[in-house]
């Protein structure tokens, strides 16, 4: 990663040629970047700006309060006032935020640490590790709708797991493994989290394992010679040297609080565990223009809290270990 590997500072003795080359190069850069930059400006800059604008607007049909036009109206902070009132008085809204906040906790503090330990053993070539690598990748290539169906039918009260355990006389007849039950009002949340860990751990292990694969062999050998045990090696060598990967995965895990919705939606068949992303998806899917302003303001509210948090955490995590290049 040094500046020399760029083409930008070549010198050409021939001045005439240099001029021509400059023009062709500029044209090249412009043409190559035109579409990606345009797409980014439209789909990121413009749409985000539009979303912010929408959160201060409301759509009225023919039935509307006095003083408003049919169509889109600027309503100031009304959508936000509405949202805060809901947070204050509506238990479902509070539950929605609480549900959403559980996903980063699960993925950053449960799945990620477990995956680091598992990936370490895979890196140390536990028996069958190349086979496990392929199998563990499997859940992440299956469409989520199919994966949730497989899980749901496996853990249903009359599904694979319960019937099998009853047949093996580990469970009494009629007894079920209740903490896996996605249909019970009290157990649904926990069952969805278990699904997330089960479905997510494999992919995490592969990502971390490929990060660990880049650690130079000599470091491993010298650690061995110095008599370092697995714990020392894991915490003193492997984790510090894969820290950039871990940081990225931690940040992606934090984002799960604003993008998880399919897991609870598909697993509980639209019944339990509403999240922010689910709410916004429903607003958009319903296609009723009256809802869009409220949805946009919900999104903006979350962004205002989440974006600085993520940047702060990223900054803090990047400071944890000195940068290494190898």
């Amino acid at each position, binding site marked *: 990663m040094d500046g020399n590997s760029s083409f930008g500072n*070549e010198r050409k003795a021939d001045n005439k040629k240099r001029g021509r080359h400059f023009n062709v190069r500029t044209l*090249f850069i412009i043409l190559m970047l035109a579409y*990606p930059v345009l797409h980014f400006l439209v789909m990121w800059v413009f749409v985000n700006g539009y979303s912010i604008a*929408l959160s201060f607007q409301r759509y009225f049909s023919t039935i509307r309060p006095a003083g408003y036009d049919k169509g889109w109206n600027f309503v100031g902070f009304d959508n936000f006032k509405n949202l805060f009132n809901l947070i204050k008085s509506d238990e479902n809204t509070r539950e929605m935020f609480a549900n959403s906040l559980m996903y980063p906790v699960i993925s950053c503090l449960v799945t990620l640490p477990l995956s680091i330990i598992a990936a370490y053993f895979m890196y140390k070539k536990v028996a069958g590790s190349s086979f496990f690598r392929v199998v563990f*990748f499997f859940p992440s290539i299956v469409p989520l709708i199919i994966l949730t169906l497989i899980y749901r039918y496996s853990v249903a009260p009359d599904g694979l797991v319960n019937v099998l355990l009853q047949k093996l006389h580990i469970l009494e007849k009629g007894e079920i493994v209740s903490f896996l039950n996605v249909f019970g009002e009290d157990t649904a949340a926990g069952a969805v989290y278990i699904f997330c860990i*089960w479905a997510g751990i494999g992919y995490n292990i592969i990502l971390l394992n490929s990060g660990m694969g880049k650690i130079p062999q000599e470091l491993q050998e010298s650690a061995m010679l110095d008599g370092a045990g697995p714990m020392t090696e894991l915490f003193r060598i492997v984790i510090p040297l894969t820290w950039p990967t871990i940081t*990225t995965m931690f940040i992606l895990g934090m984002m799960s609080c604003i993008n998880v919705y399919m897991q609870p939606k598909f697993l509980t068949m639209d019944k339990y565990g509403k999240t922010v992303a689910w709410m916004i998806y429903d607003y958009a899917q319903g296609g009723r223009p009256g809802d869009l302003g409220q949805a946009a303001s919900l999104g903006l509210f979350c962004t205002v809290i989440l974006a600085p948090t*993520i940047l702060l955490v990223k900054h803090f995590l990047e400071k944890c270990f000195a940068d290494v290049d190898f």
Partner: protein
Amino acid sequence: MKKEMIYRRTGWTKALFVIVFIIFAVLTVTYLYPLIWVLMNSFKQQSEYINNITGFPKNPGFTAYAEAFAEEVSGHKGATLMSMFGMTIAVATVGTIITVLTSSQAAYILAKFNFRGAKFMYAVVIFAYVCPIVGTLPAQMQFMKTLGFMKNSFAEYVGVIFLYSGGFGFNFILLHAYYKNLSKSYAEAAYIDGANDFQIYTHIILPLSKGSLVAVFIIQFIGLWNDYTTPAIFLKDAPTLAVGVSLMTKTLENNSNFPELFAVMVIVLLPIILIFSVFSKTIIENTTVGGLKG
């Protein structure tokens, strides 16, 4: 000698590895056994499944498969598994080709050319990746509607491809890292021989990075094949597999036709498993993230 030294394990370290092996094996069973179970049940009759949930089928047959291929998605006339396959292939193939190409262009330029603003652009892209703004779906929808991308099925298709065609997503980050480490000597040699930047990109850089591009292509293809949110909202007329199957599930569950549902799952999974078994090495080797310093 070196190898032996690294892999020699003694005492409790050995026990630890055995325990981890057992945990991995159990996890493997939880991933694979349900699949075998689904496959087994797809060969049963509707009446048999209810009494024989875990066992082998007594009179295996393809009734469930015949029904699955004939099944129409409720509310979408003519949307069968085969037509949804067609739609999914059309969306995933074209979407992947365009986004891999635009990502490759953007990544190559930002990795290899020092022009004013290049560093700033990279920082903005990383920022946008790390800090997505929440809840822009409604704005996106309103915007696509205004542009006429939700008028008819063809406009919807073009709209979804447009949404997928960005060049600054995760593919960009992967390819940027690749081009950054690519030696510039090939390009320089061609430059001295009189090739211009366009020729260098199409005749040297693209063929050189074929391995990475193929890997990114496959990973992106599977991602688009499985995508739910975008087609669910922007492709109302012709459902893709992910959307269609979730609609089909509701009907089949209401009719308690579980073997047919399992047959649907098997049919949808087969091509993915096929692609994965051919490319698993490429996919796994290229599943990697590094740090995201802007």
